[in-house]
């Protein structure tokens, strides 16, 4: 999809869809949305839908930051305590390093 060829109302529609889609525990949609529409929201000259796009993008950025924080914390905790948790952690793992606890 090429944003340059889209009409502004279509852009808003798309931006909203990504924003709403992110609530289905899909943080990547928010991440993509915040980058994709960043220029539209903050740099482009004013247009009618800009304010709403801006709201969505800001919310997406906040959502993304929260998700990154959550995931990072989990990854750190998991990596740190995986060996101690034993079999529960093994069952949660996709790839278990060989020859290591």
């Amino acid at each position: 999809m090429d944003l340059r060829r889209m009409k502004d109302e279509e852009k808003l529609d798309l931006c909203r869809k990504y924003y709403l889609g992110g609530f289905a525990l899909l943080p990547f949609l928010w991440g993509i949305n915040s980058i994709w529409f960043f220029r539209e929201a903050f740099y482009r000259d004013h247009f009618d839908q800009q304010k709403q796009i801006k709201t969505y993008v800001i919310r997406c950025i906040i959502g993304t930051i929260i998700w990154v924080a959550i995931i990072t914390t989990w990854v750190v905790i998991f990596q740190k305590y995986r060996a101690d948790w034993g079999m529960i952690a093994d069952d949660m793992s996709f790839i278990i390093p060989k020859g290591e606890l």
Partner: protein
Amino acid sequence: MGGIGFISMTLIIYCSLLYDTGWCDRVHDKIYYDVFSITQCFRRLNATHQVGCASDQGGNVGVLHYVPAEAELNWLINNGPHKPYIVLLTQHVFNGEVIHALRKSGKVNGVLVIMNTTDLPAHFSPDSSCPNTNFELYKGDSKYEHCKSAMWNPMGNDLLMTDIEFPIVALLNETQISFLIDECYEKFNKPVNGTTPRSYPLCGAEIKAGMDAVKNTPTCINRGKTRNLNPRTVVLSDYSLSVILDDITDSVSGFPQFSEQICDPLGDANVFGFLHPIRFQNKTDFNDTLEEGSIIMAATKLDATGLFQYIVPGAYTTVAGFVTLLAAAQALGSVKESIDPVRDKPIMFAFFQGESFDYMGSIRMLYDMEHGPFPTEVIKDSDGPHPIKPGHIGYFLEVGQVASLSGLYSHSDPRSNQNDTVKSGVNKMEDLLEKFGKDLNISIKSASDDLPLPPSSLQTFLKKINISGVVLTDHERKFENQFYNSYLDLYSNINYTATTKDNQTEVTALAQHLTEVATVVARTLYNMSTGHQYNGSDNGLMADSSLVAEMLYCFFLSPRCELLNFTSDEHLAKRLPEVPFDYYVGVERDPSLVTLHIERILSYFIGNAVNLTAENCTTYETHHQRNPYYNYMWMRGPVNASSATEERVGLCMETTVNKSLATSPAFIKGNDLSGTEYPSWSESVWSAGIPNVRVFLIPDKTYEIVTLCVGIAVLVVSLPTLFLFNRRATILFLAE
């Protein structure tokens, strides 16, 4: 486009040709010297621990340091500046204390041991000083547990049960060993005047012996089962030999066949057989007609273990014992017509596998008896052998380590002996052993009353049933064997002089001794069964000394002996190994050759030769229709005397001998692996396949850094240069 494809194809082909001709190898050869003839210590796991050795997944590298005598260790531990080290030890220095000192120093990344079968240390036993204490009979007994009243294996240094942080590798080839010492250590690493360390370049060694499994058996079994994203390797072994394998895979059907296992359960098969098949007395309702406590079990173990893969000679630990029991079985087999199948007590021979690992073979057989069907399924409305329950066993005579030429001791359990019935049975057996021993000038005393049982399969049975059991050994309070479960448990330690291929039946002192012990065992069993002595011949019941000599030759020196050639079928005969057997039980998916041969030898000794063709003999359906009490086994038989070639006439044996699984019940689906009830020993999968050792020169650190910097500098300079060239390409190349 096609041109580029063609050029790259040519390049690939050219390169692979170069590789084959060794051009590509040259750089490798210039850097490394590969040490091929090695065998290594590897990792095993039980319910709670990992034991043994492993390198890092990528291999362990260190500066090679040769320690010919213990005194020179101090320099390495206190002064050696070039850590980590790979330490090269002679056999005399290689012992438990040294390994622990090296572990404590934190400077050592691996150990190489120079193996030598002639210049032995005084003792070396890597097993625990109280073997198999985790599954002993005396657990929780304040007086006897953990060998409190008798330390059976005082030489045990416990290395087998220790989790060693670095790899230990034994070197077998003298040329390679002297390369390591002369070309590597002496030239580059040996401290000047014995104290001043040398400077770089130093000679380093790398050991790759990575192990995949960690922590304990439950963990690695669970990891193997986890359906994860790891690339799967197909686990396939040589199925052709494995008559028992089908049963094995059934019993562990909890493990997916094609998943990535990172450890394999230890296991194999027990061999057992009866002098006469035990039949139902009443064939209409198949009620239990076997008298409680009537079976006399004659048992021994089939396996030993050691630190290094493939080097488990087990001469004293196990071979002498099972050869003795086989010889006793042969003696009884030759007179079995005089033992009544109904009136006299049945005799059962049992050869347990995997006993070195917490008695797993006997534990499994007892489990099979309890949970049935044992020995085979009873098919209603058809004839078949009587099932055996643990309660049917009344007497147990175990042959332990018996190779020492001095006197023997009969051990019994002081706790069971408090029961009068048990005690009278024990006394009867001990009296018979002593009496028959005296007839042959062997002193067989009963061991002191305050002694518990030495490590033995009998302990497993006494945990569950009250039976009169005696263990026959050559020691009283501690093992005479200085190399229990060791890689140095060689026949030369037990006064066995090697006989030659043409002289396989020559009776050596050891063969004579074991024949006498076998005779005593056979006579005792005969008397226990019938209540009187054998009176069919003038000399009484005798074991065959030349047969014992032959068995010793087969099991000590060369499996390509006449007896094994005789008892093997065509397929097995082709697979008789050139080198002596290895008595490690191994993983269950790799059936042990020893087990298969013991089954055949026992069948030959106590079975009946029948006149059947090879085809009829081996066809399952026909023999099952014929006689459900027996298995039929085809052997190559004796060499045809009238034929000029090595052609054999063939022989069909009708036999009660069979195998049953010796894998711990812990691995049966539904049982737990936590090791409270059953042992759960497993062996880790080896990461890189074949472990390897290589040596090379380690340059100075500054030299390494300079090389790296120069490389980076060249890269940095080349990028703008190339950019400029590209820009000014028109000057260099004529513009069109």
